[in-house]
């Protein structure tokens, strides 16, 4: 792990100076606050927009605080993931393509250290982002709908974070393995097509990393088997470690692809 601290410092500097620590959490915060606000003020919004026929009455479902958190997680799962993956997918491949990696690869660094330094920084950005997202969601949910169970929140937050670690590991692995365009296609396919498949025919299985995002809340509601939750968690963590391992090997193998 030679040079890990130095490379970690470099990655943190990059993330900080390219404002990633600001704008990605900001996107998540906006996504987090959107559901509690739009749901609560839906009638007002409809009335303000107009075009509502006279005598029209819409029955709004009675939402519980946990429903709003679940809805926010749904937002993170689409736009949030898209933003996060798009900003991370070139982390290795772009550095290789534009030659910035050359001056690092020609030094006696450990590829494991370099890959992990990127993974740690991205994980930190993700942590801050979902903290901002959950924070915004919880704040407006609490004000508008009532208090949330702290235990449920912590479980759903931690479970969702583990899912995000898997997403980062897949994204980085693809970036280390392919050129940016191919890496983007492959990473998006694995994560989003995986989600769609899980949505369409996911009733046939109960253990999958793609289910983990919703399992945090479901676990608290008692709508899933505990063993399914734990197995999904273990498999996700195992796959994350495997992706990291493959990513390191591919980063080393593709070092010669760096532009000289």
């Amino acid at each position, binding site marked *: 792990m030679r040079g890990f601290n130095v*490379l970690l410092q470099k990655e943190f500097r*990059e993330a900080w100076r390219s404002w990633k620590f600001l704008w990605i959490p900001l996107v998540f915060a906006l996504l987090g606050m959107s559901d509690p606000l739009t749901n609560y003020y839906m009638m007002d919004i409809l009335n303000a927009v107009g075009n509502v026929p006279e005598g029209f009455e819409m029955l709004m479902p009675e939402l519980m605080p946990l429903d709003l958190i679940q809805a926010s997680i749904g937002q993170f799962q689409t736009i949030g993931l898209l933003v996060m993956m798009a900003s991370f997918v070139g982390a290795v491949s772009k550095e290789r393509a*534009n030659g910035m990696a050359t001056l690092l690869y020609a*030094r006696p660094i450990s590829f494991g250290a370099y890959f992990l330094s990127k993974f740690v920084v991205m994980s930190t950005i993700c942590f801050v982002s979902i903290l901002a997202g959950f924070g915004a969601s919880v704040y407006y949910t609490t004000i508008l709908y009532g208090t949330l169970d702290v235990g449920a929140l912590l479980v759903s937050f931690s479970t969702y974070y583990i899912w995000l670690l898997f997403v980062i590991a897949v994204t980085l692995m693809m970036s280390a393995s392919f050129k940016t365009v191919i890496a983007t296609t492959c990473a998006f396919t694995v994560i989003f097509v995986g989600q769609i498949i899980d949505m369409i025919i996911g009733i046939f299985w109960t253990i999958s990393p793609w289910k983990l995002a919703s399992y945090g809340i479901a676990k608290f509601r008692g709508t899933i088997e505990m063993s399914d939750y734990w197995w999904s968690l273990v498999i996700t963590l195992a796959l994350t470690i495997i992706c990291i391992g493959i990513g390191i090997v591919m980063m080393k193998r593709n070092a*010669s692809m760096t532009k000289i």
Partner: protein
Amino acid sequence: MTTLLQVIGLTKQFAEHKVVDAIHFNLEEKTSTALIGPNGAGKTTTLSMLTGLLRPTAGNVKMLGNDLRANIGFLPQYPQFHPWLTALEFTEMAAKLNGVAAKKAKLEAQKTLEFVGLGDVQHKKIASFSGGMKQRLGISQAIVHKPKLLLLDEPVSALDPVGRREVLDLLKGLQQETTILYSTHILNDAEEMTDQLLFLQNGKLVEQGTLREVRQRFDEQNYVIEFGSEEEAKLFANPSNHVIGCNVYIEIVNEEPTMKMLLQRLSECPYTIRKVERQTASLEEIFMKVAKKA
């Protein structure tokens, strides 16, 4: 002199094409060697294998008594830096990654930046640097850890004449302290700061030796004789000689005429002879001859 680096049968093959074909050479300590060749000769591929960026198809590289990667400094032809870092941060990072202790790294980075003339802008972000400044920063990151071997890929080819002169002067300063292997196709530069020449063509090392040795092998003794007038020059010249103004250019072909024959002709001629000069072939002329021979 102690041999620092041994390159033995180094080969790189992409599909059926051998880009570098079984080259052998040694680098002596504290010497400067130019890797010369036209575009596509295999210079960059050779340097990439020496840095460890490319795995050779065959052959190996031995740095005597040392770990190669820890003891080299490398400057690519178009170095790309992380633009959000300052010159000091980048050079300090380079030092630390090469094993310089964290406490010492900053001081070494500052000293090196002063040496390359970037002391005043060490806290500026690299994004604001010009091409010449980036090249000097490239040298700074390559030498900050005091490597035993400095590998430079076309270090001045992308620079304007002022930047080129600055970088060449810097490299001349380094010649006393470290071993330098650099690739170039600008032969004037090679002539200026080279102890050994390696001519690469189509991936093969077609000629090597000191500048003097190579000159002896390829430099034919041509002469230029300056007469008092253009008319005298024309009267003296044979049909095989070139006459330009008052000068007669005598080309030695198959060792004819010999020096003795030439002196005899000159002593017998009735014209005013202002100057007799032996013409030394430029490295470019030698390079063309080597290329033809290969």
